[in-house]
């Protein structure tokens, strides 16, 4: 009897999970399908789901007009650069907070998080002026710096949550064996926290890849990543939905593929410590 209930509940849960999953995935699927339609088919009502004349003309038009590779390389450099620098700063910070907490550690953590509560546009002009004076406008370096700073609180928080799960005794044992602080972090803590660091890295690469406010506002022609590539196909006076869909598909495909292959780490990273 108990088993029957469990099986039924499982089936219901599975059905709910699939429904939610499909609902969330549907806009991406629709974007993908629209990218193979003509502009007239893209706005047709009722809309055609699969039975239309599939065409690659939108991808051709996008390739002809934009330098996809330059935008793609900018996205890669900016997202990986900001994540790696963020990790280099955050690992020692999270170690200190997790294993040698002071009286103000909680407050510091909360303060770091509070920076995420400020609407970015509120600091746009000061940051723009600083960037102008330091010659950082429209440079990859500038964007790596700003995205590192923006994502640092999240990186520190994620790593802190991970490190707290690692028994302090192991680190103590390493210290007893004469390991220096540097060796303790690099050779003892880091290998044990690799799954956590990997999921933090992945999540931050995705966040940096999708970041659209700063990447649009601090770039012009040289350092503009794929967010600017998508924004160049949106139009309030003209129906270019099929081309916009093709540009969007090209922009999200790389990160979607990475996410697909690393979903285990991602899910683990996002749910770690949620159930005790």
């Amino acid at each position: 009897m108990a088993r029957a209930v469990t099986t039924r509940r499982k089936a219901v849960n599975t059905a709910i999970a699939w429904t939610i999953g499909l609902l969330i995935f549907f806009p991406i699927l629709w974007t993908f399908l629209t990218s193979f339609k003509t502009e007239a088919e893209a706005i047709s009502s009722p809309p055609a789901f699969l039975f239309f004349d599939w065409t690659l003309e939108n991808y051709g038009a996008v390739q002809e007009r934009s330098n996809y590779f330059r935008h793609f390389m900018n996205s890669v450099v900016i997202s990986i650069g900001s994540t790696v620098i963020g990790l280099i700063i955050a690992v020692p910070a999270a170690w200190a907070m997790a294993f040698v907490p002071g009286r103000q550690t909680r407050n510091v953590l909360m303060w770091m998080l509070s920076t995420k509560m400020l609407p970015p546009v509120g600091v746009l002009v000061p940051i723009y002026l600083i960037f102008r004076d330091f010659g950082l406008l429209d440079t990859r370096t500038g964007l790596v710096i700003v995205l590192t700073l923006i994502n640092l609180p999240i990186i520190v928080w994620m790593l802190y949550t991970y490190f707290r799960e690692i028994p302090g005794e192991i680190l103590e044992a390493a210290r007893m064996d004469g390991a220096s602080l540097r060796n303790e972090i690099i050779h003892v803590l880091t290998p044990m926290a690799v799954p956590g660091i990997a999921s933090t890295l992945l999540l931050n690469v995705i966040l940096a890849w999708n970041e659209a406010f700063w990447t649009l506002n601090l770039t012009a022609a040289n350092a503009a990543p794929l967010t600017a590539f998508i924004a160049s196909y949106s139009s309030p006076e003209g129906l270019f939905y099929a081309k916009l869909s093709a540009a969007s598909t090209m922009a999200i495909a790389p990160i979607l593929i990475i996410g697909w292959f690393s979903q285990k780490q991602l899910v683990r990273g996002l749910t770690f410590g949620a159930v005790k």
Partner: protein
Amino acid sequence: MHLKTALRGATALSVCIAAGAATAQDTTLTIATVNNGDMIRMQALADDFTSRHPGIALDWVVLEENVLRQRVTTDIATQGGQYDVMTIGTYEVPIWAAQGWLEPLSDLPAEYDVDDLTPSIRTALTYEDTLYAAPFYGESAMVMYRTDLAQEAGVEIPAEPTWQDIMAAAEAMTDRENEVYGICLRGKPGWGENMAFLTAMANSYGARWFDMDWQPQFDSSEWQAAVSDYITMMTEYGPPGASANGFNENLALFQQGKCGMWIDATVAASFVTNPDDSAVADSVGYAMFPSKDGVDNRGNWLWAWSLAIPESSDAKDAAKQFVAWATGRDYTQLVADRDGWRAAPPGTRTSLYQNADYQAAAPFAEMTLKAMEAATPDTPSAQETPYTGGQVVAIPEFQGIGTAVGQVFSAALAGQMDADQALQNAQQLTQREMQRAGYIQ
């Protein structure tokens, strides 16, 4: 000795080649523009400019309109110097020129023929007798309607209709069972979306945004009549979910034959008559923006996407050459040679409307010109106003206030409040914002 001479020669030659390469493209212009069809065409034709000016290279930054506006406004206000040419509208030009942010375009070459520019557009881009931006394409607003549906319904839409004519025609053409709606108008909130239309409509009803003391006027009988007629028309003869419809959504509905009439920017005419995209390309008629009985004012919608050079640019001379190329007469000819006269950027030059080839290829040409000539953005309302602008109020605060008021009217269209409530809310929030901005105590 010979070897030495040869080496010296080779070195000198390579230095010359290197220097030549450096000067071959010694100026790079960064051009910020919007993703509208005419601008995309300009980008595709830019080889013509670079072949005539081998020392100038072009970098394009194409962005969605709202993103572009935020981007270029930040840059010009902080003197960031990221752009050499900016695509801006008639709203920004007088405000930015007053701030001293734009390079005057007073020394354009004689062959540019400034006097050929459409007078109303030229006025809109002029501040204190100096031209600050060159128009790339211009638009006003007009009625586009289905001639076949009008005939079936037995109605005639006069060339200069009143709102009464429009309402009667909308009622006659509506056939909800077959998903044909008498009238499609903008409902999506935004200062450049529903408020562009509603401000123009209110202007034609004799309303104004502010009196001469900058007091908001939403409590006036003119605004009351305009908003109440707008909501009645859209509720009874408009498509479902109209509060989410902007230019593009209405364009899609019209092209699929679901709108009897559509009152919007004149530039839409070239889209709805394009047989590749539009199912109703052969049966579109045009009329002037409607007026109200007894009010001598037809909406006053005037907009021109224009090219301007920021003061912060370090390549102003090259930028001027580009602006002169992109907005000059030869460019129109270039477009006509490549894509036909129908594709010529409309509204900026009177010579285009005297061109027989253009008139033959663009059935909407005459009405577009009439609509633009009728616009008087210096005197937007029949009443006296302390501001200029047609479908906008040319003050820096209008983007914020216009969008907030647009949200109120969009909510009223969606049935969340009635017209009186919406007008009251609009009055209160505009009053508050104008007090904050220091216009009124």
